[in-house]
């Protein structure tokens, strides 16, 4: 099997506070991602692109279908896995570069990034975090400061460093280049190409056309899977 396989996935939100309004988002969603392949999700805002990444990460609950993530010789279905299994899978198999940094009060930038690596000694994690921050051109004088007060662009680079640090076989990217300067955009493109060469399966949302052309092997228009409201 492939590192990631979705089939028959459906998702509807029920808003109980708005008179149990039902908002169907996706239905019959299915695709798979091969090692070293980057699949770009396309479609207008609100089509459900970010929801797909959240479903794969187990952040949103899946109503129907299966989301299989390869684990050793078998696979785990995120749609049915226990919280404990999902946490273990996230740690070992599933990377996720979110759109925004969720900063923890008092925790410095370097530790914020290093916290993404849980299964290595702390000093190793900090050394790798430092290398990644340098790669994203975050000045060293910021490393020990909590990112809550940083500019939006600086926070985004900290978030990218954190998201790209774990080398997992499946990687989800949500707008990794939004509002980055050209130089840091190239860093993202280089990193993604590196991971592809290592055999990582990638699902990406990228609005920037040149970046998408540089990293994506195939595109999926998610409006095909939009659930009729």
């Amino acid at each position, binding site marked *: 099997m492939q590192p990631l396989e979705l089939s028959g996935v459906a998702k509807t939100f029920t808003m109980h*506070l708005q008179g149990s309004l039902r908002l169907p988002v996706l239905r019959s969603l299915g695709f798979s991602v091969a090692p070293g392949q980057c699949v770009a999700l396309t479609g207008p805002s609100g089509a459900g692109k970010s929801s797909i990444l959240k479903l794969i990460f187990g952040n*949103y609950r899946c109503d129907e279908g299966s989301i299989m993530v390869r684990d050793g010789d078998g696979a785990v279905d995120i749609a049915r896995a226990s*919280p*404990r*299994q999902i946490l273990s899978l996230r740690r070992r198999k599933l990377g996720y570069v979110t759109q925004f940094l969720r900063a923890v009060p*008092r925790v410095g930038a370097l530790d914020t990034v290093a916290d993404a690596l849980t299964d290595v000694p702390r000093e190793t994690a900090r050394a790798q975090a430092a290398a990644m921050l340098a790669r994203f051109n975050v000045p060293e004088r910021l490393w020990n400061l909590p990112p809550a007060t940083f500019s939006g662009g600086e926070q985004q680079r900290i978030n990218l460093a954190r998201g790209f640090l774990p080398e997992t076989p499946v990687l989800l990217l949500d707008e990794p280049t939004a509002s980055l300067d050209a130089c840091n955009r190239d860093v993202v493109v280089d990193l993604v190409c590196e991971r592809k060469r290592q055999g990582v399966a990638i699902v990406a949302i990228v609005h920037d056309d040149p970046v998408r052309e540089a990293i994506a092997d195939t595109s999926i228009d998610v409006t095909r899977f939009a659930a009729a409201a």
Partner: protein
Amino acid sequence: MSALTDEKPLLRTDNLTKWYGRRLGCRDVGFDLYEGEVMAVVGESGSGKSTLLQLLSAQIEPSGGRILYRLRDGSEADIWQMSEPMRRFLFRADWGYVHQDAQLGLRMGISAGGNVGERLMAVGWRNYGAIRTCAVDWLARVEIDQERIDDTPRTYSGGMRQRLQIARNLVTAPRLIFMDEPTGGLDVSVQARLLDLLRRLVADLNIAAIVVTHDLAVARLLSNRIMVMKAGEVIETGLTDQVLDDPREPYTQLLISSILPA
């Protein structure tokens, strides 16, 4: 499937129920908790979350259901089938309990060092020098200045008292810690410091924890899993980020939509 399947839970409960006469405390609570897992119990006042914490920490006896705890030798014991001294020993050595009101968890008349040392003596430490060294080390870990070791907690601020209570609880290297609104009543800056400290200590020591809180931000920061309670029953459970970002139950949606954005 993976290495997870052969590991056994530290704490198991099923059908845990408490009636106070005809009034319901909580009903049919069941879950497994593994080493290193942090579970938050959220809900409004009167939802049964404090009753549940008292039940789980064996401070009150359940009306029904059972609590199984895995001892250090690997065997599993029913909390209410074991002897009273055994239960007390667990509470002293293997568990910690952090009260919202630090005065309930500390001895206000003895020094900070004494508060930490007392827990060590309760598990058999006798060497004064070793106890003092360990107490100094723990006070440093909770960021209390060594010069304050001989002062009583009466002279401490609210945040310091709470940090001292945490040191007193963690010094015996417990495997399971119960926390009842650990940041309740503290200023936000003091709260942030305490949360950061708790988050780090729990992760470093690989302790399992059950945190009762009405503050969803605290739950998000500290816990991996969440249990939402209403009127004595568990209405929703799951991964913390899943329940907070994709709440399913009407009451959970109400709780989450009621938070004021900062």
